[in-house]
Structure formats: C-alpha cells, structure tokens
C-alpha cells in the first residue's frame, strides 16, 4: 500500500490510501467529536460534528467523509470549529428530554452527554418541544424510547451494514420522523432478529439493553473481559461485563476476527444462564438413592475408588468417557489423558455424533 503525506494541525503526517481525515486524526490521538460515526459502519456525514477546516475549501468539511489526500492541509480544533461543534451539541441536546438518560444511568455514560460535558453545554438555549415518540416495550431485550432519538441512523445502518438484516428504517420528517419496522409494527414478529446491535451503537439513551438497565446505579466497578461466545461454532469475540465477580452483560468486540463487531440474539443476550439459581454449587453423591451434597474430598475419593475397582474387576474397556463440545479444550484434553493414561483404553468420544 502506498504511503502519502498530509498536514494535520501544522504537523506533517503520513496516511494510507483509503483513510479518511477522521481516521488519520483519531489514529494520531487528535480529538474530533462525532455522533453518527461507528468504526463498523460506512461514513455517513449526517451529524456534522467532525467538521475540520481544509485549506482551499470555503466551508468546513465533515472529516468522516473526507478522504485524506496528498498535500492536504487540515486544521481540527480552531475556535470557530469548536463553536460550531458546541452549538451542534446544544441543538442535539434540545431534542432530548431533560430527565435522567437511561444510558448514562446503565452504562455510566453516553456519547451525547459525554460531548455535553466536553463542550460544557446544557439544554437551555434552544429549549423547545421534543418528539414525544412512543416506546416499543413488547420485546424482552431492547428498550426503545425514540423521544431520545437524534436521527443519526446508526441503528438503521448497523442493522443493514453489520447484521445484514435491514429490519428497521427511518420514516417521516421533522417531528414525525421515527425508526420503524416494515409496516410500522412491533419488533417482535418483524424481520428483527433481536440481535440487539442497535443498542450498542446508539449514542443516546434512545435504545437500551433491558438486561443492563439500572446496572449503572449499582455501586462497584464494571470490569470488561474479552472472551468467546459459548453458543454455535462461529466463534464470535465478545466482551464480558462483570461486577464483583458476577456477569451483568455482553458487548461485541468491535474488531473480533470472526464477527467484526456483530453478534446474534444468543451471543448478545444469552449469557445470564451462568447466574441461574439452579447452578450446581456442591459435589453430590447418591446415598440411599438420594443425591446428597458432600465435600470435594469425599466426592473425589469416592469416584477414584469406584473407578479403580471397576477397572480391576472388569478391565479398562468397562469405562467410557464423553467429553463436552461446549467446555474449554483443556477439559477435553484432560479427559482423554485420564482415559488413555489412567484407565488405559481409548474409550472416549465427544458429543459430535449427536
């Protein structure tokens, strides 16, 4: 790939062919605000927050849609630009109701309110009507409160570009605008697969994860740990959100090598079986026909002595092991080692035959 040079805020910088000015600036750690941008999506250029000044251009240009070019001279943070950006944030805020943002409450922050803090603006200058769009509360996973929608189209685009479902679209104009399914019905029963990816791209509190609701108001730090989805064999990368050693949510790893930031309904919302009340928490031995809780030592000793005598009385082939196709590989490796080296047979299989 060819490397070219441009000038950013007085510095000569290199860029790769195909990079946008926004990507170059962000790569170099320059602050450029955005609301309609998501690294998984094609540039859209609707929020205008990422404006920069380009030498030779009469008007500021949106850097997300502006391809970097050889010799281009760009300024990002002039007072004039900051004033434009801060006014834009104020106008966006004016569309939002003033009560507590559910996203800030659940996740600790949201893009719109982070920018309000950054630009030190509130919702006073342009205070007026909000759309009072209705809430669709029919499904178990997605909270949709379009009164907080800022028309960035990120949900519509993620549904189309990342998930290839195209289940929702933007309808209407002005106050009548809204995000709708085909025939304007509820998400349940539409083409929506409830994968929930619109939630995690939404920069406001218009879309929220019902499983994460109110998590932000609980004390304690939320930890994020990268892992792999436990469902089908696709191997999507997921972030596990936990607090005090307990799972509270999942988000896609944006650059996951397989899923590239996409997840399905199971990967996104099907994690809380691990918190189920009916998890087994103690070893059990059947005593007088009844499964009875015992100590680890008792369960392990008992198992070892029973297997020893079965091997002695009936030979190695009287034992059979079935490894799990869902447990980690280390589990399967250990079970085959146990079978081959301790029970001395090849009497092992996994669940791939059914």
């Amino acid at each position: 790939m060819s490397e070219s040079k441009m000038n950013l805020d007085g510095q000569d910088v290199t860029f790769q062919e195909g990079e946008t000015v926004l990507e170059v600036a962000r790569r170099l750690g320059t602050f450029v605000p955005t609301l309609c941008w998501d690294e998984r999506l094609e540039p859209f250029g609707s929020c205008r927050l990422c404006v920069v000044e380009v030498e030779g251009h009469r008007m500021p240009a949106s850097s997300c849609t502006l391809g970097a070019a050889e010799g281009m001279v760009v300024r990002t943070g002039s007072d004039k630009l900051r004033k434009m950006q801060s006014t834009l944030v104020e106008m966006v805020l004016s569309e939002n109701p003033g009560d507590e943002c559910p996203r800030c409450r659940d996740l600790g922050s949201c893009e719109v309110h982070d920018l309000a803090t950054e630009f030190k603006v509130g919702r006073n200058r342009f205070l007026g009507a909000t759309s009072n769009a209705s809430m669709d509360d029919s499904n178990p996973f997605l909270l949709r409160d379009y009164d907080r929608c800022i028309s960035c189209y990120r949900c519509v685009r993620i549904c189309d570009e990342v998930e290839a479902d195209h289940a929702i679209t933007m309808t209407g104009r002005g106050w009548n605008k809204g995000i709708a399914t085909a025939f304007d019905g509820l998400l349940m029963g539409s083409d929506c697969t409830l994968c929930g990816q619109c939630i995690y791209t939404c920069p406001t509190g218009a879309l929220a994860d019902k499983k994460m609701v109110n998590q932000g108001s609980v004390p304690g730090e939320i930890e994020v740990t990268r892992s792999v989805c436990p469902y089908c064999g696709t191997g999507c990368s997921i972030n596990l959100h936990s607090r005090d050693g307990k799972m509270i949510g999942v988000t896609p790893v944006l650059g996951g090598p397989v899923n590239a930031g996409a997840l399905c309904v199971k990967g996104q919302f099907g994690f809380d079986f691990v918190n189920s009340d009916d998890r087994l928490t103690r070893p059990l031995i059947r005593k007088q026909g009844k499964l009875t809780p015992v100590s680890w030592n008792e369960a392990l000793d008992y198992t070892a002595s029973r297997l020893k005598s079965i091997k002695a009385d009936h030979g190695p082939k009287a034992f059979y092991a079935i490894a799990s196709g869902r447990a980690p590989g280390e589990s399967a490796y250990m079970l085959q080692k146990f079978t081959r080296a301790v029970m001395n047979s090849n009497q092992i299989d996994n669940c791939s035959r059914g």
Partner: protein
Amino acid sequence: MLCVGTNMTECHPIIAVRVKKAVRKGAKLYVVDPRKIPLTQYATGHLPLKLGSDVALFNAMANVIIQEGLADLDYIENRTEGFEQLKDHLVPFTPEYAEGVTGVPADLIRECAIAYGSAERAGIYYTLGITEHICGVSNVQSLCNLALITGNLGKSSAGVNPLRGQNNIQGAGDCGALPNNYPGFQAVDDPASQLKFEKAYGVPMDPKNGITKIAALDHAVDGRVKSMWIVGENTLVTDPDVKHTTKALEALDFLVVQDMFLTDTAEKADVIFPAAAFTEVDGFFTNSDRRVQRLRQAAVPPGEAKADWWIIAEVAKRMESGVHFDYSSSEEVFDELASLSPIYAGLNYDRIESGDLAWPVPHLDHPGTPVLHEDEFVNGKGKLQLLEYVPPSENPDDEYPYYLTTGRRLPTYHTNTMTGRSSGFRILVPNEWLEVHPADAEKLKLEDGDWAKIRSRRGEVMTRVTVTKTSPRGTMFMSFAFPEETMTNDITNPDVDPITETPEFKVAAVEVTRIESPTGFAAEPALRASPGRDH
C-alpha cells in the same frame, strides 16, 4: 455459494451475515434444503430436495459439470485420482433421474450445477442436514466430489466447509476426545503415535481404537460398559430414542456427570461434579475455521463449582497411577497439549490472544493456516468417490405417512439448557411447535395452536401445531428444545451411518393426529416471535 442442509440464519447467524453480504456484492447463492428456510430469501435458487436424497442430487450435479465441460481437468490430473471411473459411474445420474429421486426439477439441478461449475471460486457450506443421515459420509463425499472436479479445494472463498454446531466441538476433537485419535488427529493405531504418547504419559497405550459414544450406549445396555463419565452433555435428551439411552444409563454400575446444571442426564448419576461456566475459567475454544481463541475468567464460580481440568486432575491423582496430573493452571494444560499435538505446536496463551491463528500452526513463528490443502492433500491425491444413493432407513408408509425432520430455532439453542435459563428467551419461543404445511394441516384438520400427537416406531410426543409453508408438504419439523414438555428424541430415528455412527436425526417416519389440548401445559402466550413465518 452452495449452502446445503444448513439453516444458517438461525443456527449460525453471524456466518449467515457473511453470506448475505457476499450476495449483496453479487455472489450467487444456491440453497439446498427440504425446508424453505429464511436463507432462501437471499438465494439465486432454492433446491427443495426430498429428505436424504443428497447423493442423487450431487451426483447429478457432478454429471452436468462434466457433460458441460466445466470440470477443471488440470486440477483433476494433478490433484485427484479416480476421475475416469467417476465419469463412468455418473452416467446414469442424469438430472432427470435426480428429479425423480429428489423432487427438484431437472432444469434447476442443471442451473445450479452450471453456476457452481463455472464460478471462479465456489464454496460449499454444510451443517447437520448433511451428516445426520445413515448416508452422512456419502453425503459429504458427494460434496467433496463436486469441489474436487472443479478445483475448489485448496483456495480461499472455496472449499467444503462444515459449520460446527457447538462452540468447541472442533476443539474437543482436536484435543483427542475421539476413540481413534490422540490429540492433533494422530491415529491411535499408528505405532509411532502410540510410542509418542507412551513416552509422554509414562504408561502403555491401548493400541486398539475405542468405540463411539453411540456404540458405548449399546455396550452399557448389554453390560460390557459398567461406568461412564459424562462432561457437559445432556446425553439423555440429545441422543435419538430416549428410551434406549435411559436404559443404557440406568444399566451402569457407576455414572459420573460433570455439569453446570442438574440435567436429565445428571439426575441418573451416582456422582455429580459442579462445573464452572465459560465465564468463570481461563481456556480456549476452537471454532469452525480452526481458529484457536482464548477464554478469560470474568466471574467467580458459584459455591464450590470448579474448572473441568481441575476436577479431572484431582480424580486422576487419587487413582495413584503415577501419571503426571499436577497442574497449577489451565495454561500448563494447554502447553502440554501443544507439546504433543503438531497442529497446535506453535501455540501458547500469548499467541492465541488475538484469535488470528487457524491450525495447523506447526511452530512458534508460523502464521497459521487459514486455507487447508493449498498444495496437496494430507493423503496425497484427492480420491473421487463412486457413491450410490441410499434412501433413508425410514420412509412414509400407510401407518406412518409423514416425514419428521428436526433442527434448532434461532432463540432456542440445542436442549435449551443455556438459552432456556437466560432471561427473555422463553418469551420469544415459549414451547415446542410442530411445523405443518397447510395442505397437510387441512387433511389432518389441524389449525394454528391446535395440539397434535406425533407417533413413530419408537414412541410418541405431544405438541402444539403451527401451520406454515416453511416445511414442504409431507414433511413436518420440530426442534428438541423443550424436553420437559415434548421429548422430541423419544421419536427420532436411531439408525446410524455405518462409518461415523451418527444417527439419522433428520429423517423419521411419523403419524400425526389432532388431539384435545392436554391439561397441565402452560397457556400459549399472546405475543411471541413467530417460528414458522412464511418466507
């Protein structure tokens, strides 16, 4: 792209995303599936073949490819053997013959064969719709024939790609949880491999292959197998003919189950070990494209639940076999695996951090192998197989006039032990449904929401009915996610493929009759994701 027996949008939704995106970019997609699955919405053509007639269809496609001069003769010459015999063998497999067996119009078979044969790169993607048949191996080989005669094995965006149904089913095989392979698919009956593992473990290895799980259940019934240790599998619910499996598990002297939940299988156990969940341990999963990826602990196991590897090691130590089982972490277990498995030799926890490496990774500087068979096949030349069409072991007759086929639905994974315990999913799909074509429904006097009794040679179950054109006339569909109400595998077909011993879950002959709503079942909720929406 040729997608065969794979209901991808429901079972592998993120792989389906890739397929849908490729279609947008202009790729042709042919879907081969008895049911009008959602993926057909994106397809250039849908070949709704009769259950289990795959070999007839793919032999006919191979025949057309050869007749039309679309075979890659250079590739055939350099990389395969048996082409002349195949050519002769395929003569009777005309599209017209295949139409008679499969029910797919001959012209559509021709169109699909020509599209596949003339594509620069054509990929075949399949799932259990191909393998869960008494002729599962032949089905896969008939797809391999197509790829071999068109030079579609050994380059990217091509190949014959099985989509694995579980997160680590590939990894479990990689690790040697197979009766005929040590870790890394090293053959148990190969003296060099035996020697290697005897040296590594310090004890003699049994030079003979073990038996499969399916055979082991038979051996349990007849008393040859006295004890089983089952880790993380709900065998009782997932295997065909539940009565037989129950008998097998109850006949054992000693059953150990290691699981997160008290499953139906665990209810039969003599000892239960509480296992930690994937969120509570470090480790790895290997996915469908052989990508070895790292799991990391994010949560604390409940109560005294422990990591699988620890439990097995602790039992092993108490058996006083003298074999090394002193591990202090899952990483030590992984390192030992990598030292014994040539395909993992270049891997350690640092190298699998990003999930970018697909095995084989023979050494630490190796970049992984995203495409297999680039220059040659493991066994030298690709053997073209002369395959015959074998009908399913059960076909409709007067007593059992319908086909039953089974599979998963998007929001209910497998036996629902995970999705069923995750909040919200039971709202999407609260119970089982039998999918019935409108013409069959009319004949059986069944309407949406009615109850039906489904009877096979093994037993009978009851469930609600949904009338839909998704399943073709004469073929019903069910999942197996609600065993507490509807034990689908009470009625599925236990006959197996003679080589893999995989049961024919995909074809059973059944009788369906309308019944009055039974008592004791929850009422149907007013709002739900519709499972049999017509596409």
